[in-house]
């Protein structure tokens, strides 16, 4: 096995009676852009803080590049953090902020200046050196925070919802930019988000957190197309589960299965279905027209409810909204249905 940038083993953290992190095992490879995705309170920040060294684990170990750092202080670890509130030093100029880490490490003045300016250039902030953080916009502050961390060339960069405070448009710009910067510097990025779209578009791999545990680790395609648990199916994308009676009738199998809404075809007439396709009859309960696509909420005759997303290639809003109450068949290829663990809580050995 090649050296991992980050390895967590049986990591736990309790705050009094609250178990914020309840046994996490995770390996992040060198140079990966890795996302920790999960709802509020699922323990993402706590895991990140234990990797940075701000919090010491109740149990378990943290390894960076194969070296056990569990008991080391933050200043002894080769990681840097981009904080959610950026945590820029308000009494220092942008340049002094970026130079801070180098000054602490006693990098000679000329080299320090050169590296800081290069870091500011890489986040497109040349010309802002003399400003104070208060004189910057949110997006600019975010980039100063990034430059301040990157200039130290850490082995791993930790980012706690780095784009959370930005508006939608700026966030989308920064997503592209962050990804480009990571490719350029080749540093491992480990970033926390509760925005599933952000995680899917930016990361090489994703770990989905729920209640202090990891439910699934995989590439965006794996996590999205083949959610391992009911929680992942519902948290990443829209949950479409077929279970119980419906599974027996429609699929002829026991268990719970997931199908993504855009994989379903809404069929009105007597269209033939292929040999590898499954179909389920039902009644359209709700039609939501959303510009480029339409969402159909269909109550199945066999019990349960599925959501189908159809591109509006031909249809207009008039056509589709008239379908409320219509009898339809939902058709999908069987390779798009995946069995899912029963919704019971998965147990990870700690």
């Amino acid at each position, binding site marked *: 096995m090649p050296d991992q940038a980050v390895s967590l083993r049986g990591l736990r953290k309790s705050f009094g009676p609250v178990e914020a992190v309840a046994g996490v095992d995770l390996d992040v490879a060198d140079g990966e852009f890795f996302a920790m995705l999960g709802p509020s309170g699922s323990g993402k920040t706590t895991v990140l803080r234990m990797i*940075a*060294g*701000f919090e010491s684990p109740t149990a378990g170990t943290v390894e960076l590049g194969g070296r056990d750092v569990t008991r080391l*202080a*933050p*200043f002894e670890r080769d*990681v*840097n*953090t981009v*904080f*959610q*509130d950026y*945590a*820029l*030093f*308000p*009494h220092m100029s942008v340049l002094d902020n970026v130079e*801070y*880490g180098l000054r*602490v*490490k006693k990098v000679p003045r000329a080299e320090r200046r050169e590296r800081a300016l290069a870091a500011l250039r890489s986040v497109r902030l040349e010309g802002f050196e003399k400003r104070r953080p208060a004189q910057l916009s949110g997006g600019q502050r975010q980039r100063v925070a990034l430059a*301040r*961390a990157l200039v*130290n060339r850490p082995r791993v960069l930790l980012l706690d919802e780095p784009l959370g405070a930005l508006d939608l448009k700026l966030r989308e710009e920064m997503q592209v930019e962050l990804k480009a910067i990571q490719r350029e510097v080749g540093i491992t990025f480990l970033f926390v988000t509760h925005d599933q779209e952000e995680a899917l578009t930016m990361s090489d791999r994703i770990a989905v957190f729920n209640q202090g545990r990891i439910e699934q680790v995989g590439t965006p395609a794996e996590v999205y197309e083949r959610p391992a648990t009911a929680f992942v199916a519902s948290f990443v994308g829209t949950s479409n589960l077929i279970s119980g009676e419906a599974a027996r009738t429609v699929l002829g199998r026991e268990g719970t299965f997931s199908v993504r809404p855009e994989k379903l075809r809404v069929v009105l007439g007597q269209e033939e279905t292929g040999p590898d396709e499954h179909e389920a009859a039902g009644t359209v309960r709700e039609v939501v027209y959303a510009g480029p696509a339409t969402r159909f909420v269909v109550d199945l005759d066999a019990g349960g409810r599925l959501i189908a997303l159809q591109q509006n290639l031909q249809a207009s809003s008039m056509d589709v909204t008239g379908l409320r109450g219509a009898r339809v068949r939902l058709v999908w290829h069987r390779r798009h249905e995946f069995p899912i663990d029963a919704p019971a809580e998965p147990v990870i050995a700690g």
Partner: protein
Amino acid sequence: MTTTTTAAPAGVRRRAASFLHRHSGVRLSLLLSAPLAWLGLAYLGALAALFVTAFWSTDVFTGDVVRVFTWANFTDLVTGEVYRTVALRSLGVAAAVTLIDLVVAFPMAFAMAKLASPRAQRWLVIAVLTPLWASYLVKAYAWRVMLSSDGVLGWGYGLTATVVTLSYLWLPYMILPIYAGLERLPNSLLDAAGDLGARGWRTFRTVVWPLTFPAAVAGSIFTFSLSLGDYITVKIVGGKTQLIGNVVYDNIGAANNLPFAAAVATVPVVIMLVYLAAVRRTGALESL
């Protein structure tokens, strides 16, 4: 212009209200007029009276105040060796008290603001405030008992005893502003410094201290001016030590020389003005 009375028609009242809303400057000055008048009359007025009195003299035989302008009091003050020594000693005491309070208060305030649990924090604030509810005299006499040669500390009375007692008395006035300043300092800044490789001392020097300096200055203004003006503590634990306050007090009482007392009393005022001007240059007052 006046604000509306209750008898005024609703329209007038509404118009006045909207006028005040639009002209926030007028609103502010109306709101501030009472406290400003109080400050102007009671405080600045008294200060002016003090200053004027300082240029009068007393009749040697009758002891009555002679209301004729003279520099005599100030010439005495500047040329008198005793007074210069007393003024310098007072300055030294105030500076020492401020320094001691700063050194003691900072770690205490830091522990309160950054290390204690929210529950412990509340109790610690109360613990710091409680001595302020006790009478000044009770606290000073408590120290007198402790310092007396057969007391717990047994250091005896004098300059050191005065400095120690004053440091104790004014400590809360240093802790509270610094505590408030540290409360405003986001924890993430401390984390960020550590994250960038700084150890405790460096984090303190480059992040904590610059950002809480204005709070420390605010505290020092209290400890410094309270120490400069004190005359009771010196009387209780100072032994033979004389400070500016005693000179003022003795001239009002025993010597019955009100103009000279006034002249002496301007000394701490001038020292404080110089101190404030010096502090202002550091820019600390802007962020108070």
